[in-house]
């Protein structure tokens, strides 16, 4: 039905498709929402009036869930526990329903009542403008350098509120650095960077990347350090003390770190325990803040002394 209703151009701009039980299907683009017209005479055309949209039934949700999991939800147990599944193409499917709790933890989700398809959009070269800020100024160009490529890289943290492009920029940074010669281990706890489906990365992260998919960040960083001998470790959305301790460990071993964290400004992140620890030890040499009003653009860059450098 969706295929009939959507042109290729329209599909490219979709950010989310939401299915909620007994509610109209909603297709979201950057700034607008649509639904599939429920009126058969309109040949499933799109409508901006959501209340006229196709009402999602339990059977629709059950069948969608079966197709997402390839008829095998048991094969996606860990993902379901975390509330999402990554499908071919690196798209993330968020799930809501009745949770089954065991030992105070979510065992599984049954009777699925909401499914949210988050369409993955890899924006290549969106981090090109950041490269010059995270490399040492003495080096004119990474490719020309005879030195070990990663030694020119500065420990970097990208900070912004949600939906400002942190992950997209980090993904592109990984791709650029990896293609310029750095061996990078990516700890992809929520499959957002590589978008691995059945172990195959769906996003292009470059030629020298090893992905530890679905692994807790702190554990993953230490495992990658021991097993993959990385020059750089990349990790998305750090926040816990365990993450901070792992970063302290890996930076002490001479491995560079590039990561992201939620936050609005310098004052706010200073109050986060994990980042406070790392700031006090001057682990990060670059703090890149993204503009919350303009997705993917840099607002401020600070050095390890928290002095503004851009």
């Amino acid at each position, binding site marked *: 039905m969706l295929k009939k209703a959507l042109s290729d151009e329209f599909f490219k701009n979709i950010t989310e498709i939401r299915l909620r039980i007994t509610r109209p299907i909603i297709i979201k683009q950057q700034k607008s929402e649509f639904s599939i017209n429920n009126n058969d005479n309109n040949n499933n055309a799109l409508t901006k009036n959501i209340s006229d949209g196709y009402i999602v039934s339990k059977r629709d949700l*059950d069948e969608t869930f*079966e197709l997402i999991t390839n008829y095998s939800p048991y*094969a996606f147990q860990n993902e379901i526990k975390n509330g999402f599944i990554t499908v071919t193409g690196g798209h993330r499917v968020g799930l809501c329903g009745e949770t*089954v709790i065991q030992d105070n933890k979510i065992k599984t989700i*049954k009777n699925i009542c909401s499914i949210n398809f988050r369409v993955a959009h890899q924006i290549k070269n969106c981090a090109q403008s950041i490269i010059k800020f995270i490399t040492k100024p003495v080096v004119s160009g990474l490719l020309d350098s005879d030195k070990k490529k990663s030694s020119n890289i500065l420990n970097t943290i990208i900070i912004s509120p949600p939906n400002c492009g942190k992950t997209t920029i980090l993904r592109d940074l990984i791709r650029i650095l990896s293609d310029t010669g750095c061996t990078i281990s990516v700890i992809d706890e929520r499959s957002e960077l590589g978008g691995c489906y059945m172990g195959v990365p769906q996003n292009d992260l470059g030629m020298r990347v090893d992905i530890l998919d679905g692994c807790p960040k702190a554990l993953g960083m230490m495992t990658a350090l021991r097993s993959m001998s990385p020059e750089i470790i990349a990790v998305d959305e750090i926040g816990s003390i365990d993450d901070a301790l792992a970063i302290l460990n890996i930076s002490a071993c001479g491995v560079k770190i590039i990561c992201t964290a939620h936050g609005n400004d310098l004052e706010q992140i200073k109050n986060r325990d994990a980042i406070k620890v790392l700031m006090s030890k001057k682990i990060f040499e670059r703090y890149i803040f993204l503009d919350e009003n303009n997705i993917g653009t840099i607002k401020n860059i600070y050095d390890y002394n928290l002095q503004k450098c851009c």
Partner: protein
Amino acid sequence: MLLIKLAGIILVVISSGFYGFYHIQKIKFHISDLQQISDALEILNSEIKFGTTPLTEATKNICRRSKFFVKELFFKINKLLGDKKICASEIWQQSINNIHANSNKNFLDRDDILLINLFASVITSPDPDLQIKCLNKIETGLQKKILILEKQYQHEKKLYYNLGFLFGLLVITIFI
């Protein structure tokens, strides 16, 4: 004339004896079919429990390791899963019911089909424990049935062998 009569007597005795033999062998074939399907479900159970292998892969593996009607059954399930046209529980039910329809290829009865069809209700359950328990229940049910049939086989083996032969003699006696 005597020669024809003699040939007739031999034919009647052999065919009635063979009928008795076939009747008892049907139980043996039934046991063998139940064992085959039980083995296949055990593989499926292991694939879910230890390998968390997706159903499409698991059915392909079972198909590779099975014979006769079980191979055909899992080949069909695998094909329907790949087509993605109907839901998994319908695929399972449809395929299992189809075995019963093709009863010339196997000896499973209605009760066996009902028992195996129990899996249809949990086939896409997000809780693997439920699927494993259901498969264990089906396997136990099949094994119980095998035990009953084996007892029946031992009990009725001599009876039907002799009964077939004696029935042939009875027919001959009446007609002579």
